[in-house]
């Protein structure tokens, strides 16, 4: 597998401009001759689909929900970063770039991150122009707040529903292009295979989830905007439908999968409460602006939180990290919460929880002041837990939230399969080993509005139209494969439900490859996964048929891919014997129990290549260069 990152040289602030100028263009009259498939309609997919259509390309957009507006970007709460420096507090493109590289624990490409910081300002302008109702100050200017891992206020927000408002903005742009006849939507449609012929992506094979019909779609380029794979852990903050199938199928067709072990555990989620639980709910990181995190100093202290006096509370983040306090990055906050619980000082009935206390904030701002900032989050918390967070501290615990790993892409956002692009959370490019809060929205929209529309033109101009149509044997073969898998799943007729396998896999990963990973735990997981797989294919029960809406069948197909994918995730975690960002190997920590990198051996992206069914995948590396941000032990003290 050849990994040519195509990252430009020269002064970092000029790289993207110079590179754009060198890219080949497709002239306006020729753009309408090119067909582009976009899979996924979240921030990345919708913004890319809309922009490509505005440019004149013919876009087809596929998604599993009933409307593009449902994609899980909608659930992002806190905000979106941009280097506007409207606050005059010392922010700049360079600072956002630096914070992101450092926040990612020096495991991302400098050139990509700089480009992200550079286009961040255009995103805000674009969204304002679309009518996104960002929070404003009384003078009418845009308001900002702070997020983890930064000492400036650079986060733009729309109450606690920033993702919703940005997605509805991108959705509206997409729908305006549907109206213009440049975008065709395929709702309730799931991608099952990527079609590759003569070394180029030629299209996809899908299943219509209402009729069960398996169909081929040929195009000149395929864009995967299919999100992350957090649901491999079963319980996560992702939507129930989020899955790895599109990315995993691309991997099986030759796309390198980079850093699958980089998973983000978000520190502020509502704790798990029962076996039947179907998902975890995030409480936005923005809450850490005003909420104070603590546990009792004493082990096994079962008093109600309000009965514990101030001097018997351990505000552990404020004490350990005085300069960032409660706003340390997510990986640091999560590990600190785990440590407190491991010491027996966790709270709640399970002992797996810490307090996020708004007592001081309510005193300072009044209940209405707190409601103004976080009203919908408090409302959501109360709905789930039946506790009033204005009066009683919230209980929170870390949960799987985001995946930094993803399909390997070059500077053009193209995977190792020519013509197959990956954008947003589906790729690996910008967050290194840990993503900072409010940067996912930024990256999704940067890729879709401002990067891919330029770089895809270069591919199309160079390669021309695809000559492979849906009658080609590669398509018929892919259709047979997809249909064969559906038949196989229906034909097992065993006893266990798809969800029962998913829960088993998720628990195995959470216990052995979650917040702390060791040689022993990872090997235990690797030994167990094939057994789950074996039983899955012998004892699965899928009711109903393939020729109708069959949600059990959809779940089964996704779980089958999660099981296979879990193996590369664990292998990647095993091979990376250092700790970095969200990947914490207990063998590699500093004396103060912080993640200890090993730059000599691991300053690279690990890229996995599929070698065939039953064969071990091959691990390749792309070396990372740091010319501007010199790697150092990350410190938030």
């Amino acid at each position: 597998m050849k990994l040519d990152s195509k990252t430009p040289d020269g002064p970092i602030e000029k790289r993207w401009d110079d590179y754009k100028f060198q890219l080949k263009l497709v002239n306006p009259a020729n753009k309408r001759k090119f067909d582009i498939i976009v899979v996924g309609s979240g921030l990345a997919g919708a913004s890319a689909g809309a922009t490509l259509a505005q440019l004149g390309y013919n876009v087809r957009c596929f998604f599993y929900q009933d409307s593009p507006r449902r994609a899980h970007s909608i659930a992002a709460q806190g905000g979106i970063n941009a280097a506007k420096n409207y606050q005059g507090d010392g922010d700049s493109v360079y600072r956002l770039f630096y914070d992101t590289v450092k926040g990612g624990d020096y495991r991302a490409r400098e050139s990509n991150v700089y480009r992200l910081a550079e286009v961040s300002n255009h995103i805000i302008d674009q969204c304002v122009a679309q009518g996104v109702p960002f929070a404003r100050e009384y003078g009418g200017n845009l308001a900002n707040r702070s997020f983890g891992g930064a000492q400036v206020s650079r986060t733009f927000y729309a109450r606690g529903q920033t993702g919703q408002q940005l997605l509805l903005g991108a959705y509206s742009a997409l729908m305006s292009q549907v109206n213009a006849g440049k975008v065709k939507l395929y709702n309730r449609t799931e991608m099952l295979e990527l079609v590759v012929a003569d070394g180029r992506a030629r299209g996809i094979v899908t299943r219509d989830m209402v009729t069960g019909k398996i169909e081929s779609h040929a195009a000149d380029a395929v864009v995967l905007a299919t999100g992350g794979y957090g649901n491999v852990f079963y319980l996560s903050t992702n939507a129930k439908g989020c899955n790895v199938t599109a990315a995993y199928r691309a991997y099986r067709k030759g796309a390198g999968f980079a850093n699958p072990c980089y998973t983000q555990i978000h520190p502020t989620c509502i704790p798990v409460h029962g076996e039947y639980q179907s998902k975890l709910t995030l409480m936005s990181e923005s809450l850490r602006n005003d909420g104070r995190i603590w546990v009792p100093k004493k082990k096994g202290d079962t008093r109600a939180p309000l009965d514990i006096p101030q001097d018997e509370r351990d505000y552990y983040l404020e004490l350990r990290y005085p300069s960032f306090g409660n706003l340390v990055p997510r990986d640091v906050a999560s590990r600190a919460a785990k440590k407190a619980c491991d010491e027996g000082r966790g709270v709640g009935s399970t002992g797996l929880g810490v307090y996020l206390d708004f007592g001081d904030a309510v005193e300072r701002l009044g209940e209405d002041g707190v409601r103004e900032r976080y009203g919908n989050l408090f409302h959501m918390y109360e709905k789930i837990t039946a506790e009033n967070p204005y009066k009683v501290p919230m209980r929170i615990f870390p949960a799987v939230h985001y995946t930094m790993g993803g399909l390997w892409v070059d500077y053009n956002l193209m995977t190792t399969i020519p013509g197959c692009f990956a954008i947003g959370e589906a790729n690996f490019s910008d967050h290194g080993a840990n993503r900072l809060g409010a940067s996912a929205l930024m990256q999704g929209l940067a890729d879709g509005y401002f990067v891919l529309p330029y770089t895809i033109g270069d591919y199309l101009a160079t390669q021309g139209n695809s000559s492979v149509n849906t009658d080609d044997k590669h398509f018929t073969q892919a259709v047979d494969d997809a249909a064969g898998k559906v038949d196989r799943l229906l034909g097992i007729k065993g006893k266990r439900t798809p969800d029962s396998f998913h829960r088993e896999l998720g628990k195995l990963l959470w216990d052995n490859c979650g917040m702390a990973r060791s040689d022993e735990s990872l090997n235990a997981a690797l030994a167990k996964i094939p057994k789950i797989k074996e039983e899955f294919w012998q004892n699965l029960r899928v009711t109903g048929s393939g020729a109708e809406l069959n949600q059990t069948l959809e779940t089964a197909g996704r779980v089958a891919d999660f099981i296979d994918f879990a193996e590369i995730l664990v292998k990647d975690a095993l091979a990376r014997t250092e700790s970095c960002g969200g990947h914490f190997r207990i063998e590699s920590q500093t004396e103060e129990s912080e993640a200890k990198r090993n730059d000599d051996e691991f300053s690279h992206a690990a890229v996995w290549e599929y070698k065939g069914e039953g064969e071990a995948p091959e691990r390749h590396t792309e070396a990372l260069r740091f010319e501007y941000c010199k790697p150092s032990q990350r410190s938030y003290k």
Partner: protein
Amino acid sequence: MDFTLKVWRQKPGTQGKLVTYEAKGISSDASFLEMLDVVNERLIEKNEEPIAFDHDCREGICGMCGCVVNGYAHGHQGGTTLCQLHMREFSDGSVIYVEPWRAKAFPVIKDLVVNRSAFDAIITAGGYISIRSGSAPDGNAMPIAKETADAAMDVAECIGCGACVAACPNASAMLFTSAKITQLALLPQGQAERMTRAQRMVRAMEAAGFGACTNHGECEAACPKEISMDNIARLNREFIGSSIKK
């Protein structure tokens, strides 16, 4: 907790009916959808087909879920989606009726799953501000009063779930349509297309088969985001105003 469910089951092209299921030993902390998950797992174990229902984010923001529960869209609790409704809100041993959204414009696909593409058609007709990517002026070039931005946000919170239509005796989509029209009419960016937008979205709404508003107010009561029906008055004003100026 134990419940008796009366659930609407319907296959494509056939008449539906209510089927009774026992849901025993459900945790009071389970959400309504988690209760349905448990029922479905048991159905699969008995080799029966599980109940099809739409859902995705399960935190009240994607708008994918929604059923009529005991006659109320998203259940009896105000300001919540079905995924945010918890079983502790029901009495132990009670009978619960679960039906799909019922509206001509939302045909049933299967069981509790309906086709809401008509909402997309309304947005496609004009629910946007046309702006080419990369051609926007600086975000602070045009100050917008905080009150205006807040009022726009109040309506922009619509999640497009369709509860307003399901609750309305006329199956009207006026609350949904008015929320988008109001958001864009309030903001200075939305002025250029204001007249054509109102015309086109109302026409699309009518073409999709939604009924008219006769001021029942059920939509506002059912809306999980508590969007006010005052917006319908604004929609009428925008529509009539644009009809005169045309």
